[in-house]
């Protein structure tokens, strides 16, 4: 919510149904442009924990790291009476009793804790298992930067997303780079944002995935608007869809090989092209107006 005109505190997530449409380009550029206007009041959270990339296009000085842990069961077979209640209550099939053995599958465990609670002889202790980490630091332009990173071959990355979001400060402008798609990781990231910017490209793929993302935002009750990236490459489908559905198109970024080339050298739009900074600040003003409506 806008507290005063100097420090508009909003949490804005940047998502897209389709991958590779320019989420990270936009989130890093938006944060950079805003940090110039509001020094010390902008955060960038990279919540694409399966494939975190923001630091690859906006230089970051990392200063801290913390592990993200899930509590998983360890069974004391001396105490265990082989009653099988733990396996009965485990919805993730992460613990099984097979004849006289009790076996745990930690990679399937969601860390709910039901097995330890149900055990009648206290044979289960919960031990922390590292499933990812959160790195913190300062990104170019004085942006407070937070990045989640799941360990390879982890299925339940939600706790890493949660640990990233826990860094959001209510008195800051917080920009969140979301993972692609519309499934749990995207939902967990976007939920509770004041607004979600959906980045798309004007192709049938972009359009199809945009539709799914808009429906997901609506299910989460998060208002959304569209940024069309690589404008000019495809057809008019995205424009027509937005007009029909009453979704605002907030900004268009043209299809430009120079933008792509700078990006592939590790320099995001606002970093390489200063002319874009006021445009991106204007995008944020549009978002703030949409939220206020």
């Amino acid at each position, binding site marked *: 919510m806008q507290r005063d005109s100097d420090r508009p505190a909003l949490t804005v997530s940047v998502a897209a149904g389709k991958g590779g449409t320019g989420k990270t380009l936009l989130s890093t550029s938006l944060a950079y442009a805003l940090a110039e206007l509001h020094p010390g009041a902008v955060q960038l959270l990279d919540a694409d924990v*399966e*494939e975190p990339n923001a630091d690859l296009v906006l230089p970051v000085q990392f200063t801290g790291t913390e592990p993200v842990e899930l509590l998983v069961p360890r069974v004391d077979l001396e105490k265990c009476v082989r009653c099988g209640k733990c396996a009965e209550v485990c919805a*993730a099939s992460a613990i099984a009793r097979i004849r006289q053995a009790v076996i745990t599958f930690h990679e399937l465990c969601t860390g*709910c804790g039901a097995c330890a*609670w149900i055990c009648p002889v206290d044979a289960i202790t919960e031990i922390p298992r590292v499933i990812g980490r959160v790195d913190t630091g300062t990104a170019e332009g004085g942006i407070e930067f937070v990045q989640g990173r799941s360990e*390879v071959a982890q*299925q339940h990355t939600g706790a890493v997303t949660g640990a990233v979001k826990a860094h959001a400060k209510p008195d800051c402008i917080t920009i969140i780079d979301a993972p692609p798609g519309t*499934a749990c990781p995207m*939902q967990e990231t976007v939920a509770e944002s004041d607004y979600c910017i959906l980045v798309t490209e004007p192709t049938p793929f972009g359009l199809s995935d945009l539709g799914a993302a808009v429906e997901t935002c609506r299910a989460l009750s998060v208002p959304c608007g569209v940024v069309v990236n690589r404008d000019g*490459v495809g057809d008019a489908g995205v424009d027509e869809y937005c007009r029909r559905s009453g979704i605002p198109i907030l900004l268009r970024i043209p299809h430009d090989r120079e933008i792509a080339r700078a990006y592939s050298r590790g320099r995001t739009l606002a970093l390489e092209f200063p002319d874009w900074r006021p445009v991106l600040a204007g995008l944020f003003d549009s978002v703030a107006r949409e939220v206020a409506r």
Partner: protein
Amino acid sequence: MTPYKQITVVSGKGGTGKTSVVASFAALGPDKVLADTDVDAANLHLMLHPKVNRQEQFYGAQVAVRDENLCTRCGECERHCRFEAITVEAVNPFACEGCGFCTLVCPRKALHMEPALTGDLFVSQTRYGPMAHAKLVPGAESSGRLVTMVRQAAEDLAMQDGRSLVLIDGPPGIGCTATAALADVDLALIVTEPTPSGIHDMRRVIGTAAHFGIPTALIVNKADLNLQQAQEAEGAAREMGASIIGRLPYDETVTRAVAAATPLVEFDPDGPVSQALRNCWSRTLELIGMQV
């Protein structure tokens, strides 16, 4: 040993061209079954125009439901839930993991678990062979299980029709849906792009496949956008044990083929990318002991 082989096309990073590549490979031999496991952003159907033969609803997730008449607002559920999915006021179905812990701790038995609609599963026919695909319900959980359902349907089709190959369009990332799409396949075919993010994400997806003991192979898409990075990607992949299949050049015709909803090898059969795709496909099949 199954009588058919399975290839999943993944990338780590989104938007590297997985679906365009799969659509073209679909249009080349041999007989195969197709599967789209990018269930929350499915696009392969836009290129292959499947005619749906069978559609079924899939209830993969469980969600806590409370009988508010029995509830005494004691707060036991809220104290025990580790996903912040339940308070004395309400259940948040988006946050609910489906673990059922709350139903165990409720002293009044006011909570129970109900199956939640995850998505629709489709079994279809295309010009290029039968196809299994799905659509996730907006806001639904358990997309990994829906991926497993699509894969099961595709394998059933392969058995029924005696097809020798299942070609799977995978999701981006390396989490729940990607691991479900990669489980037990004969080859993880990675399509990357020559950028720092492309290479970073490629490493993570090769690492994921390797963790599950799945052989990996690499195609660098849009390779001429940055030849140095293309080389770096291939070097890194080789070091991690992947086979290098080949490169595809950057060509705006690929986007036009998407707009025309036609596999590139049919849209522009003599173009440079189509030729490179045919070479890449032969080499991919060779790797798993098959021929076009």
